[in-house]
Structure formats: structure tokens, C-alpha cells
């Protein structure tokens, strides 16, 4: 198990290096010159050159990648010019150790942008995740137990409806009615959890709901299918034959097995969401990674794009690792192999 985790961690490292190299190459394949975008309308070629130097874009590509990696681990300066640093230290911007680059458009280190956006995204994703897993797995189990009867049909029908409603539509619907017409909840906004947990939750309930509807619908169907399968297994029949009480049969013998594939899906879905929820964040006006990504793309803020892509890739691969470890926890057969 330990070797397994170590091997997987190494693989994740390789994955991230490859991702960063590829995004870096894309960066250069882009038709726009980032330096030209930095100095507004009254730009002179000299100014552009100076900015290019400040951004480090005048160096060969492999050196730039090296600078990027160095920035990640040791921090770096913009411009990275010892002469200028000695003469006019106040013109140098220092970027602290996990430096993902410097956004010249926003005049801020990218790391700072990401760390501001990340809690918003994590709050959104985590809350929605808990909500949809609870609803999805519970309703899926009920549907499986009442297979073929009206309750099952109701749940499956509801799931189909939920699945067909786009997030932005539900989001707008909630905004219009819950916040504006009926004024039950405030207009969603992000308050850091540590400032006021209640306000944090109140501001997030609607986006959570909007996001959870689609996912819950998918998980209802998934859980229902796997529960029906696992409840028809021989070992469930054995459990009943030895007189185990029905609730225990369903949860301990049926659900635990059905959870194995559900955990896989859930981990990957959560990992995907942690990379940013473009639509949800946009609809509710949350400044998360998704919105950051959209804005950087429209403004060709290349350092930010690279950073967001890397964060998303890291979230996804780590989620994958967690899923694999959980697999071993759930299923002893995997653990021993």
C-alpha cells in the first residue's frame, strides 16, 4: 500500500511536469504578444521591449520554463535583472516562493490571485458535493429498494428532470425567486468561513443547490443501478439466509459494495469541480477559479492561465489518487494485491 502511494505520487509529479510543459508551449503558440498587451494604447516599441524584459519573455523558452520552475520552489524577481536590482531595487517586484508567475494585467502575483480564488471554489465545490452525495445516494438507494414501484418511478423521473436542467437555468431561477421575488435568502455572496460560518453557508446555499441538482440526478441513477446489482448478489442472499436484519443487509452488505464505483465517480467529479466551476461562478458572481480562468482567457493573461490549468490538473490527479487509496480501504481484495 505504501509503495503504491509512493509510486502514484511520483506519477502525479510527472503528470504535473508534463502539464506545465504543454501549457507553457501553448503559451508560446498563442498568436498574441503578451508584452504588447501590457502597456495600453499609447505603446511604443521601446516600452513593449522593456515590458518584455520585465516579464522575462526575452529569454529562450527553456530558460523561461526554468525560471518558472525556480519561481515555484525558490521565488523569483520581475524583472530578473541583477543590475537593475542593484541600481533601483524599488522597481523590482519580488514573487514569493510558490510563485506561479506575475500577472502584468492585474499587477499582482498569480499565486495571490489563485489563493484568493481557491477558497471560493473549494467552498462551492465541497458544499455542493456533500449535498449531492447525500441526496443522490439516499434517493438512489430508496429507488433501488422500491424498484419498479411508484416511488422508484417518481425518483427516477425526478432525476431525469434534474439532469436535463442546466445549472445556469436553475441558478437564475433560484436567484429570481428565492432572493429577489420572495427574498428568503440574500443574494449569494462569498464570506470567508472563518469570518462568519453562518453567513458563509447562507451565501452559498443557492449555488450549492444549483450545482447539486445536476450531480444528484446523475448519482441517483448511478446508485440505483449499483444497488440493484449488489442487492441481487449471492452474498446478500446469504446475509438474509443467516437472519441478518434487513437494514443491516441493505447498508452493510449491499450499499458498501455499491459505494465502490460511486466513490470513483465522486472523486473524479469533485476533482474536476475543484479546477473551477465556470458557469456557476459566473451566474452567482463568485470570484473563484472558474471566473479567474474565464477572465484570464478573454484578456490573454497568460501567466494566470498557466497557473489555473496547473491547479486544476493537480486537483484532478490528487482526487484520482485519493480515489485509488479509498478503493483499497473499501475493498480488501484490492488492498492485498
Amino acid at each position, binding site marked *: 500500500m505504501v509503495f*503504491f502511494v509512493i509510486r502514484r505520487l511520483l506519477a502525479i509529479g510527472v503528470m504535473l511536469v508534463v502539464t506545465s510543459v504543454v501549457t507553457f508551449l501553448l503559451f508560446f503558440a498563442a498568436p498574441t504578444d503578451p508584452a504588447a498587451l501590457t502597456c495600453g494604447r499609447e505603446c511604443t516599441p521601446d516600452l513593449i521591449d522593456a515590458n518584455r524584459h520585465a516579464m522575462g519573455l526575452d529569454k529562450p523558452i527553456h530558460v523561461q520554463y526554468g525560471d518558472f520552475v525556480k519561481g515555484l520552489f525558490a521565488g523569483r524577481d520581475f524583472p530578473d535583472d541583477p543590475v537593475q536590482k542593484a541600481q533601483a531595487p524599488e522597481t523590482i517586484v519580488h514573487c514569493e516562493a510558490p510563485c506561479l508567475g506575475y500577472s502584468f494585467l492585474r499587477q499582482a502575483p498569480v499565486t495571490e490571485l489563485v489563493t484568493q480564488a481557491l477558497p471560493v471554489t473549494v467552498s462551492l465545490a465541497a458544499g455542493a458535493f456533500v449535498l449531492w452525495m447525500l441526496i443522490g445516494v439516499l434517493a438512489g438507494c430508496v429507488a433501488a429498494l422500491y424498484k419498479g414501484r411508484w416511488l422508484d418511478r417518481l425518483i427516477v423521473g425526478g432525476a431525469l428532470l434534474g439532469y436535463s436542467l442546466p445549472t445556469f437555468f436553475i441558478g437564475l431561477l433560484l436567484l429570481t425567486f428565492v432572493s429577489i421575488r420572495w427574498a428568503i435568502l440574500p443574494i449569494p455572496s462569498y464570506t470567508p468561513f472563518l469570518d462568519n460560518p453562518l453567513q458563509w453557508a447562507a451565501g452559498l446555499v443557492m449555488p450549492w443547490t444549483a450545482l447539486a441538482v445536476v450531480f444528484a440526478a446523475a448519482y441517483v441513477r448511478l446508485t440505483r443501478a449499483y444497488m440493484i446489482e449488489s442487492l441481487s*448478489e449471492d*452474498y446478500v442472499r446469504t446475509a*438474509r*439466509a*443467516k*437472519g*441478518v436484519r434487513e437494514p443491516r443487509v441493505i447498508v452493510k452488505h449491499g450499499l458498501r459494495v455499491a459505494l465502490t464505483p460511486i466513490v470513483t465517480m465522486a472523486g473524479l467529479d469533485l476533482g474536476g469541480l475543484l479546477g473551477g466551476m465556470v458557469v456557476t461562478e459566473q451566474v452567482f458572481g463568485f470570484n473563484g477559479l472558474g471566473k479567474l480562468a474565464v477572465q484570464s482567457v478573454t484578456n490573454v493573461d497568460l501567466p494566470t492561465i498557466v497557473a489555473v490549468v496547473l491547479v486544476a490538473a493537480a486537483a484532478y490527479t490528487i482526487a484520482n489518487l485519493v480515489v485509488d487509496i479509498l478503493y483499497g480501504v473499501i475493498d480488501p*481484495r484490492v488492498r492485498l494485491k
Partner: protein
Amino acid sequence: MTALTRQQEQGATTPEQAPLLDVRDLRVHFPTADGVVRSVDGVSFSVAKGETLSIVGESGSGKSVTAQAILGLHRRGRGVVSGQIMLDGTDLMTIDDESMRRLRGDHVAMVFQDPLSAFHPYYRIGSQIVEAIHSHRQISGESARTLAVEMLDMVGIPNPKARFDQYPHEFSGGMRQRAMIAMALVNEPKLLIADEPTTALDVTVQAQILSLMRDLQTELGTANIVITHDLGVVANIADRVMIMYAGKVAETGSVGEIFAAPEHPYTWGLLGSAPRLDLPRLERLAAIPGSPPSLINVPPGCSFHPRCAFRDDRLGCGSTVPELKASTGTHPVRCHLPGDRRRVLFADPADPADPADAPGDSGDSGGLGDPDGDPADLGGVGGLGDDGPGGVGGSSIATLSITASAEPGAAVDATPLLRVTNLQKYYPQYTRKLLRRAAPPVRAVDGITFDVRAGETLGLVGESGCGKSTAGRAMLRLLEPTGGTVEFKGEDITRLDGQRLRRLRRHMQMVFQDPFGSLNGRQTVGAIIATPFKIQGISPEGGIRHAVRELMDRVGLNPEHYNRFPHEFSGGQRQRVGVARAIALKPDLIVCDEPVSALDASIQAQVINLLKDLQEESGVAYVFIAHDLSVVRHIADRIAVMYLGRVMEEAPWDVLCERPLHPYTHALLSAVPIPDPEHEARRERILLSRDLPSPQNPPSGCVFRTRCLEARERCAAEVPERRELRPGHFVACHFPHEATAVLTGRP
């Protein structure tokens, strides 16, 4: 009152006291979109304290559904259960779900067929047994654990304390079934229901489990219901027998009565369709034609009449459902024919009552062209009939004469059709550390040598995991051998390139075990059988379509069904499709890998007869791979016994079965149950201890030595050579010897 009538019904076998379990007119019907499936349709029986009732029938006869109905496992399900089930004075049909749950696992317990899927894969064996205890008794975890460990010890699991904490996948098949029995008996139930408890196990393990079940029954006094399709198991374990067919009881009586004087034509057919180790080899098996009926459209009248060789419509076989009654015989039977007439027919079946009737309207059950629906085929039954009453009746001692070997002085002359020399198939393994390293390989096949001559059948037997299937595939290069040579007609095929190998495939074909998985469900059977022609680019005379129809006719399928899909056929018919595909190009050699083990006994006999006929006609040679020695003995000219990747002994079939020299062959032969209760009672078995060693780490010297009763020091030090001890009799053993008495139970 009821007790009186019951006693009348069952003859004198029921003890005086009220039975432990009494089932009256049990019906389990499943409504489906196509109609009502009448899985169990009016079944009545009882089980006395401490006795063993065996319910026998083919798949779909309703035997498992009956058992599950007793446990109330159909509650909340789709099945509609009616009738009366009384367990020790409690009416199981009327009690509520919670009372039923309390009875399950406490008063009635069940053991299932496949112990791998019946145990929950995520929980330790011990905790699953403890769960069974805690579902019924409020005792501390500590004492539950002690109880479970004691029980594991009682069922013969070595080192039970350590085994308690292991998972099911860490147990071997036999150990798992022992643990399953331990779990079922831990609450000391009054009634134990075992549903095909040994079907998924090897014969040597089956012998262990059956002997364990008998011992436990004597010790605990539990009443048993053993559900099985294997008449050998019945003869071994049962006190009374109930034969089921299409959801109804065909016949019921004491084990002696059923085997000595079967009353129902179906029982008689079942007894005749299984090849037996203890009787002279027959030319043909007495297959029951056709296949069991659909339980939605059960044939009118006697549900067995479309397959019955003795049906007589004047008696109402095709129109009135016969009663289950003891007319003239010793025990109740559901048949219109008068008992004395049946006895005459069973003794001389070559003369059916009314031959003109039989083929006429037999179309109503097996619409898909019942292959042997022709009464002429039943002529072959005569072979059994000749010694039927005597042999089946249990006085078989006299009939066991050694039949002369078919081919005197094994052909020394020409090159054999297939020569396998030191064939190996290793699977490389790797450690699961951070840096992977090569581990010892799994030696699936570890140097086997034998010849197959043109037109003969070599039987390859052994228990699961002995490498027989791998060997079969490696000798056709469907798997790439890792060592040794395979010469086909003098040419070493292990070195052939792709193109030449493909051309050679014309001459060597394969029939697979699984009649479902080995046919592409999206192709019509016509297309499936035509595949070899297309692959080899051969256009047979009259076109492919014509050739395929001829092949279908040849294997007993209706050529009109050319455009049907595999799922429209029964298992036996699908296996015929597989055979047709294999013989399409008139090969010289067919490797049959367990071709009948997935089929019911009556169907098994049909396919075996077909294979024999085809061989007689075309002179094809077979390598017949099977785990069932009785089947192999029936069809093979020579038999090779494999163990852990090696051939232990190879000899002509009669020599191998009558005068084997290898201790493993002795154990294997002695473990095969024989459908004759007297014989079974008399027999002494060589029970192999321990489990099969891992093929990744086989024992040094002789691989069998760890389980061999004769093992001495030399066996660990030296690998025994393959020696020809008699003409054509090869043995790989340091201490070969004869042990005839043990094998057959003869004094």
C-alpha cells in the same frame, strides 16, 4: 389426521413422530411480461428430524426455488408463494417478516453452491460468522468469537484462530465451503438446506465436504435437505430422494427404492444418461432427448411427455396431469403408465409402447428442433437395458469385468498426429514493491509429454488449476507456449509464423466449455458456423450456405434455424453450434475443453453421443479435457491425469480406471461418487488432505508429494521421471502401486 395420510403417501419411511418440516402444495409463481413462470407448482414433502432428503433435478426444475421458499427468501420479491410450510409446528407462510428473520439462520440455515460469491468479499470470514451469531443471540463479541473459532475447528479448518481474521478470497474453494457450513451450523439449526453444496468443487474436495456433512449430521442431529443434480452425490448422502421435473415432484422415495427401482421414466433416463465408473463402458449413453420445457408454457398433461420414450396418449400422457401416487410400486410416482408395464419397458426399452405416437407432436415443447426427438435414437438405450435392472439395482459386483482394451498393443508404427514434448507455459510474475522485480513464474503447464494418434481420443483430466485447459490452448498455440515442442503431423508448430499457423488451423479446432460465452451473440448461428470457411477462404461445394445447413443437420440442429441467434437456443443446442463450427473444415484434431461440464446430465449425454458419432464418421482425433473422470472414461481411448501442471499418469482408459499405479489417480478415482447407494456405503475413500499447492511455488521433487499418502524422502528430493511401466502406461511416480479395492469398493 394429516399425519396419517402423509404416512400412507410416503410408505413406511416416515418415522412415527411429526416431521420437522412439512411442505404442502407449495407453489412459487413469478409473473413476467411473457407470462407466469411456474417455478414450483404444487410440491409436497416432509423431512423428519435428523434425516437427509435430497431434491434432485436439472436446472429449472424448481429445486432451488423450493429451498428458498422454505427460508422465506421470496418475501418482498416478485415471486408469489402459496401453500403451507410447517417447521416444527410453526406455519412459515403466516408468520410476520421479523419472526421469519428470527428463524432464518437460527432454526433453518442454508449453504449455497458457490462459496466464493456467497461470502461477502469485503468482510473477514470470522466477522461474517459472528454476524450470524449476533443476529440471533445477544452474547459478547468475545464469546461469539470463541464460538466461531470452535465451529471453524469443527468443520476441519486448520489453524482456525488465524483463519478467523482472513478474507474469503484468501481461502481455497474447499475451505470456503467448510467455512460456509460452519457459518450455517453455528447457531445449531434444526434444518440445514444445502443448495448444490459441492457442485463448484473438485471431486477430491467434494469427497471431503460430503464426508464432513455426514459426520456433522451424526454429531449434531441436524435434518438436511441437499439439493443436487448429481446422482452420485445423492447416493452418497441421502436417506430419501425427491426427483423434480418442471416444478413438480416426479417421484419420491427412499434412496434405495429410487436407485434400485426407479419408477418414473425421467428418473430412469437420468440414471442412464450419466456415465458410471463402476459399470462396463457403454457404446452410447442413454440420453434423454430434447431439453427441459419452458416453465411458462409447460406442456399439457405430463410435463415430461414430449421427452418420454414410453408415452402413451391413450393413457392421457399428453392431456391429463398424472397424480403423484404409489400405484403398484414401492413409492409415489407421477406417471400414467401402469407400474408393471413400466418395469417391462425399462428392462427392454428398445420396444417403445407406441412408436407411431412419439415423434408426431413432440414439437410442442422444444420448438427448436429437438435433436434426438426421434425414437429410433433410443435404440442405443438397449446397451443400458441389458444390464439395467441388475446394474442400476446395486448388485453391480458381478458386472465389473475388465473390458479388453480397444487397441491391442498401442500402435508403434507411424508418427502420431500430435506429439507434445515437454510443453511448458509459464506466466511471469512481478513483485509488488516500489521497484518491481521478477518473481517466480506461475507454472501453469510444466513440461508435459504425450502423443495423440489419428482418430483416437486422449482424455486430459485433473482438478481445477491443474493446467489442463492451458495445456489444451498451448498445444494449439492459442496461447504461446514458453517451452517444449508441439509436432502436428511431424511438423513443429511452435515455430510456425502467423500465415502458416493460420493455414494449419484448418486441421486443428477447438470446442469450448461455455456455450454462452463462446458464441458471438450478435451473429446468427449460420454466420457463426460459416466463420471458418470465410477465415480460411474456402468455398465448399454447393456454397457456404449449403455447407452450413448440412453441418447443422449433422450435429442435430434444425437447418431452418440458420438465421436464429444463439440466445434462442438452449445450452445443449448452443454447444452443438460450437461443435458444428469446429467440424466445419473437417479437421484432424479437435481440442474439446470441458465441452459438457456446463450442461445438465441428460443434455450432457446427447453431446457426448454426438461427439462419438462424429468421430466414428470422420476419424477426427479428440483431446478431451474434463474434470469428470466418469465422462472421460466413457469417451477416451487413453487418459492422461494432470496435477499441478504435470502429467502424473497416462494409460489406455481401461487400464487407467481399473489398474492405475499413481497415488493421485487412486485418490481421484476413489473420490468420484457413484450413483449407487449400496456401493457408496461400501466404499472406502482416499481423502486427500490439504489444498492444492500454488503453481508459483510448487513442492520440490514430486509436486504431488505434499498430499500423497505414500510420500517418502525421495519424493521431496527427486522429480519422478515419466516411465513406461506397462506397454502404453506411463507413470511419473517413485513408488507406483496398484490399489484396486479402494477404487471401486469391491471386496
